[in-house]
């Protein structure tokens, strides 16, 4: 899907996500699907932010840009890929 700074994202209701980190490696569990994944640092930041509360793409892009010390255009591109993957795995979804 095309990036849209105003689009809001959230953890799907009833997903029951869990998270742990060991030595910088992030493991996330999706309670409803039973899937477990190790996500990159960037994806982990996005997910942890969403687990706290829904957020829009511009906020998430800013978060990534600061964390990785990159320009916002690059962060937005990376965010697009991350959100696409998270949506595919049902860890996150746009708020309708």
């Amino acid at each position, binding site marked *: 899907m095309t990036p849209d700074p105003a689009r809001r994202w959230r953890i*799907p*209701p*009833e997903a*029951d996500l869990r998270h742990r980190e060991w030595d910088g490696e992030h493991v996330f569990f999706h*309670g*409803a*699907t*039973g899937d477990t994944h190790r996500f990159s640092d960037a994806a982990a930041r996005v997910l942890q932010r969403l687990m706290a509360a829904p957020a829009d793409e511009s906020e998430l892009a800013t978060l990534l840009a600061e964390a990785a010390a990159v320009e916002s255009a690059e962060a937005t591109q990376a965010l697009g890929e991350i959100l696409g993957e998270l949506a595919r795995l049902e860890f996150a979804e746009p708020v309708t």
Partner: protein
Amino acid sequence: MNCHPLLDILRDPARMATLDLGDWDLLLRQAGAAGLLSRIAVQAETLGLDARLPDAVRPHLTAARTVAAKQRQAVRWEARRVAQALSDIDAPVLLLKGAAYAIADLPPAAGRLFGDIDILVPHAQLGQVESALLLAGWHTLKQDDYDQRYYRRWMHELPPLTHIRRGTVLDVHHNLLPKTARIRTHAGPILAAARSLPNLPGLSVPADTDLVLHSACHLFHEGEWGHGLRDLVDLDAMLRQFSLSPDFWPTLLARAQALNLGRPLYYALDSCRRWLHTPIPEHVIATCPSRPPPWQRPLMRQLFDAGLSSTHPSCRGRLVKLATSILFVRGHYLRMPWHLLLPHLLHQALRRNPQQT
């Protein structure tokens, strides 16, 4: 009707507190075979009995509750995916049976185990629905042309759809009974009376009376009796809860009349009362539409009782094997006229896959 102590506990779960270890040994096996272990485990928890039960028994109930909780979570999530896949369809999509109970938090959901998800859609939208589901990853497993023809031409449902990645199964119905069945019923009124689900836009569930009638219909017209007692427990749970509404019984009877499902309803009410002591007013059974003539009742009771007992070796009488076969044939008989039934059964027998859930 030999299924003790399981029946005693289904009729009065609080009696779990009085069972000795020998009783529990048998109860866990009977309940396990009937698919009802999780249900009694949840009831033990609800009634606060766990602490009073023998130490050796408690882990079995904990394990059974764990399984049920997971299945409930899984079926709710799968229903969500179905809703998403069909979000562009402009027609009612009804969840039936187990999935309906789980999503709408109805009485049978407690401790229930789930298999396939069943949905009901208008016949006119069948093609659209099938396309949308295919797009989302549900497809018919490779079946020969004969099976495809059987389902599409004669049955009230599409061939089962399996999700290509997850392996979950979806049964798409367009009526409660097949086109070829001896009793004809209509899906239109059921679709019209459906209640939408606030937490799952796009999906609905049948009205209370229709849930009862569908469950009765499914139990007494299908050929498979493996889950017979479980289905009866579903019915009992619904009847006990729904009959708290003062106009439930007259509405149920009227609805049975309108949908031409009085016969299966009669058998359902009669079996529930005899097996599970469901409190059903005498006049309700006595005035049930299309009730069978008195001479037919003892034989049908025997056959149904045998089918319902078939779950565990300790429950079975000597005649059960024959009776279960008669009921299997009866199930098919009700679904297809004889001249179609015999060739079909022959074909199925030749192709039998020993795997069976």
